[in-house]
């Protein structure tokens, strides 16, 4: 195959075309919307794997599969895509989760409007799966974007499908949740827009003035300006991630959103926040990043503990998972701003692993709620006896949320803690208390929902169906593979971490013993 085959553009276009096809399905064919969408998502998955094969992992720090075309030259805007190892890993995560979410949605969203109105056959589900495909295209694009303006457009455009997925297909409080989600995101995005424009004005300008590669190292701003623009970007990303104290939209959204939406939202979309910090904030504003790091580290540690404590106090399964993510995003941000090669690798890996683990947790929780009709934890009890496989998969997903060794999340959390310890000892030690909180929120939930005497007021339940096993099976397999052989993912993120540190201008930490030996030569 030719080296210049536009893989990334293909990966962006295929789901968009798929969405168009799904929308255009004529009346009788509409009930096939789901299989068509799954077919498209599987094709996309295969294409992405093939594309990944032409990625040179020994050069994972370099943006590969790059394409560039003029878009609005007069404004300096280009269509530019390319992925380094981190971007590729997140693209692969997106295209893995999408078909699973579609498969999981098989029996969700019956063609009855939530308000009880019956809608023509296949019509509503058609919209839902088409929106997921549109979202998939945006997700791939945002992780591949190499032009700040293009990135910004995608950052905002992603809100549209999600807004409709929540507002039209969510639970009883969906409208409030959708608006809250939109407002928080818009607020962040608009602050970022100010930053984007200011950045351009201080950059090299020209027809390719928004290209990240042209901007890195070429922005001449006063220290104050750089710090303000950094903050504009960072606030947007912190809302998206979400970090304490701008996290409050997430629990409301996760509670109301359809499960599949939550999976993509928390599993992938929120990663745009931490991905943005890593690939935009750090390289574009190195001085400001170093300046803000201590405060951000404190906020990250607060997120870790706060999210963990709040998760323990939740009654609603979906809100609980949302708060665990606040805690986990705290770890990711901690690792990014600790500026050690080990912690940055840990955070990059964490983004992928958290997608797998939280995705699995949301999906299995969704299967449970679909059976019991309630997301309240206290409405359940003793279910391990009734639905042992569902209980087992929930436990495995939970164990990965508490970073049990052997599952992939352990490697990333451990790298973040060990890496951070080299630079910020106190922060790492306090953050490590998150592992105790994680044990509590996972095992308390398991205890309340799955152990004890079987509740007799629960509807009769069947264990996981074959389809549902195919949804969680691949996720659990991926967690085990990356837990026992994390090199597969680490080979992608190792080089980018070094590149990032170089751009930030921070030397990696050296073991103290080596220092004392070299230094004093005793």
């Amino acid at each position: 195959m030719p080296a210049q085959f536009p893989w990334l553009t293909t990966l962006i276009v295929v789901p968009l075309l798929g969405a168009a096809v799904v929308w255009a399905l004529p009346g009788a064919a509409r009930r096939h919307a789901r299989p068509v969408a799954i077919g498209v998502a599987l094709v996309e998955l295969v294409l992405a794997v093939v594309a990944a094969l032409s990625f040179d992992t020994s050069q994972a720090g370099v943006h590969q599969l790059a394409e560039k075309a003029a878009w609005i030259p007069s404004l300096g805007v280009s269509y530019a895509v390319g992925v380094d190892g981190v971007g590729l890993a997140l693209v692969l995560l997106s295209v893995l989760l999408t078909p699973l979410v579609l498969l999981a949605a098989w029996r969700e969203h019956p063609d009855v409007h939530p308000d009880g109105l019956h809608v023509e056959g296949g019509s509503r589900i058609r919209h839902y799966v088409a929106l997921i495909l549109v979202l998939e295209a945006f997700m791939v694009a945002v992780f591949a974007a190499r032009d700040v303006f293009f990135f910004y457009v995608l950052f905002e455009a992603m809100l549209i499908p999600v807004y409709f997925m929540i507002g039209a297909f969510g639970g009883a409080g969906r409208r409030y949740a959708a608006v809250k989600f939109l407002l928080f995101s818009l607020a962040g995005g608009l602050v970022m827009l100010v930053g984007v424009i200011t950045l351009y004005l201080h950059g090299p300008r020209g027809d390719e003035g928004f290209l990240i590669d042209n901007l890195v190292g070429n922005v001449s701003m006063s220290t104050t300006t750089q710090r303000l623009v950094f903050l504009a970007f960072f606030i947007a990303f912190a809302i998206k991630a979400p970090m304490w104290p701008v996290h409050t939209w997430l629990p409301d959204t996760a509670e109301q959103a359809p499960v599949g939406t939550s999976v993509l939202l928390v599993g992938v979309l929120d990663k745009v926040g931490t991905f943005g910090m890593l690939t935009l904030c750090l390289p574009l504003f190195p001085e400001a990043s170093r300046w803000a790091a201590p405060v951000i580290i404190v906020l990250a540690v607060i997120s870790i503990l706060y999210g963990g404590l709040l998760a323990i106090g939740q009654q609603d399964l979906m809100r609980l998972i949302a708060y665990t993510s606040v805690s986990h995003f705290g770890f990711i941000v901690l690792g990014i701003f600790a500026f050690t090669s080990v912690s940055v690798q840990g955070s990059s890996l964490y983004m992928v692993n958290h997608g797998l683990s939280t995705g699995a947790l949301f999906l299995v929780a969704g299967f449970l709620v679909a059976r019991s009709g309630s997301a309240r934890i206290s409405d359940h009890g003793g279910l391990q006896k009734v639905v042992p496989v569902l209980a087992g998969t929930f436990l495995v997903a939970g164990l990965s949320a508490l970073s049990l060794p052997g599952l992939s999340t352990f490697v990333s959390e451990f790298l973040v803690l060990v890496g951070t310890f080299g630079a910020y000892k106190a922060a790492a030690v306090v953050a490590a208390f998150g592992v105790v909180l994680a044990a509590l929120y996972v095992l308390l939930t398991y205890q309340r929902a799955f152990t004890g005497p079987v509740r007799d007021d629960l509807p009769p339940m069947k264990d996981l169906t074959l389809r549902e096993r195919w949804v969680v099976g691949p996720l659990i397999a991926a967690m085990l593979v990356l837990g026992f052989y994390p090199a597969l993912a680490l080979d992608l993120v190792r080089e980018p971490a070094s590149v990032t540190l170089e751009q930030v201008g921070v030397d990696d930490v050296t073991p103290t013993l080596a220092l004392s030996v070299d230094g004093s030569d005793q």
Partner: protein
Amino acid sequence: MLTTDLLTAVPAVEPTAATGVLAAAWLLIALPMLGAAVLLLGGARTDRWGHWIGVLASGAAFVVAFVAWLAMIGLPADERVVDLHLFSWIPAGAFSVDAGLRLDPLSMSFVLLVTFVGTLIHVYSVAYMEHDTSRRRFFAYLNLFVAAMLLLVLADSYVLLFVGWEGVGLASYLLIGFWNHETANAVAAKKAFVANRVGDLGLIVAIALIFATFGATDFTTVLGEAGGASEGVLTAIGLLLLLGATGKSAQFPLQSWLGDAMAGPTPVSALIHAATMVTAGVYLVVRSGPIYDGAPTALLVVAIVGAITLMFGAIVGSAKDDIKKALAASTMSQIGYMMLGAGLGPIGYAFAIFHLLTHGFFKAGMFLGAGSVMHGMDDTVDMRRFGGLSAFMKVTWVTFGFGWLAILGVPPFSGFFSKDKIIESAFAMNGGEGWQPWVFGLTAMIGAGITAFYMSRLFFMTFHGKQRWSDGHGGGATDPDAPVRHPHESPALMTWPMIILAVGSAGLGGLLAAGSSFTTWLEPVTGHVEEHEPVLAVPVITVTTLVLVAVGVALAWRQYWASAVAVVPPHGSLLTRAARKDLYQDEVNDALLVLPGQVATRSLVYGDRTVVDGAFTGLARGVVGLGAGLRRLQNGLVRSYAAIMLAGVVVLVAVVLAFGI
């Protein structure tokens, strides 16, 4: 014959690469892991024969272990530290961890203990769990445990050790909560995992500090270069590792989970919560010897923790009426002995491991005996309703009796050789200088007397004295509340493992002590130790200890055999009442941790809603400037919000342009 020793600096044995049979040591972990995978994924199809798969996997691991041991003793002593590199596990640049195994006399001792006792307990469980509909799942978890435990002791780096460390924690959680349809059992399982996680937090930070200091986490580098690090750093690492050890080994102050862990099926208590997993903390300390060698303060704290726990467990054990909880307290106390031994430094490392091995045999044997008693007594555990069982369960009685004599330290049973060595070494602590030898030596010695009391109490209450149950035909107890029982001996699948462990309880100690063969065997790891005299002459220590043991037995005999045992616990002294409540460990934990945690969680949940979220929704209301606020907002005023925000951006951009920021 009995002399105690002190370390002289001995160069560490350099590891060599594994060859021959030793290169196949990964099978030790892979076989039980495969067993667990087959049983878990095989589902109901494997229900009928799955338990035999479990036995086979564990038995095969023992065969591999035995062959590997033969290969190792065929090597000269200075070539018995062998590394087996498997694959590059976490290649994260500066932080690079390989998956590799460390085969040496220390790990090999554990491997033999775990696979041998483990296999016996698998066999026992085939019969013990026969009527449980989830027997297959039980064996899957047992196999998982064996795999994780072997990984823990075979790992060649702290990070890989941590995988096994949390792996056994998971297996322990799953097995304590095996009957989790009882909420109390599920709570006990969670409590064990969370208490262990507190310890694991220490281990995680320890590894972080190790990496920050040495730039590596493998034993060869870290232990080889430990001498180059400052005492402050080594002390910190030592204390953090100890925190991990106290969680896993149920040592003070993280001991509170072990008693509740008795909620698990009895074979689990025997294997995990007596013979193997709970001793992992001792392993961790001994393995990290070179770190503690440079951190005398940390080592002293290890000894203090061990001494406190050995007394704590002994006191609690004297008051418990639940046979399993009494044994659990005893386990805690015996591991306290091991921890004290390890805290003595090089003079104690080998004896700590020695006692760990003999304890693994006699305590596992007694737990299986307790399971056999429960099997014959309708799964009840209240010793106040036992009594006189020796006539009905001869094999259980005799094998349990061997374990009893062993833990008492009656010569020539196993415990005599191993526990006495720790007591002697304690009297030789600190080179026989200062207060330490007296305090730790006397604590260990008095503890032996209390041990004799509570174990004899347990033994007499169960097997001797009057029957405090009714046989339903007018025999035994005649009080109206007396439960009707039909005690009977257990089937051969259960009695044979007990017999084999009883043989070990009798002979293993003498065998390993003969010619100091065991301490010599461990020398490639623990170093060679030179003789040093304790502050009291060795015969004086031995005789005094035996006298105290005799006193303990006599007191128990008078109270629990010669005179009638009350079926309702008497009010008891202040100490007895405190000991029944585990010296108020749960009350203390509740007051110090649980309650403040709950208050914090509740107030944060409330504050998140009102203060944090309230600030933003309030802001939204302010922006709109409409009193109706959120109500309107829900009616689709998105466009007006967007418009206002866009206006804001335009203004901001204008400001940027105008002032040329």
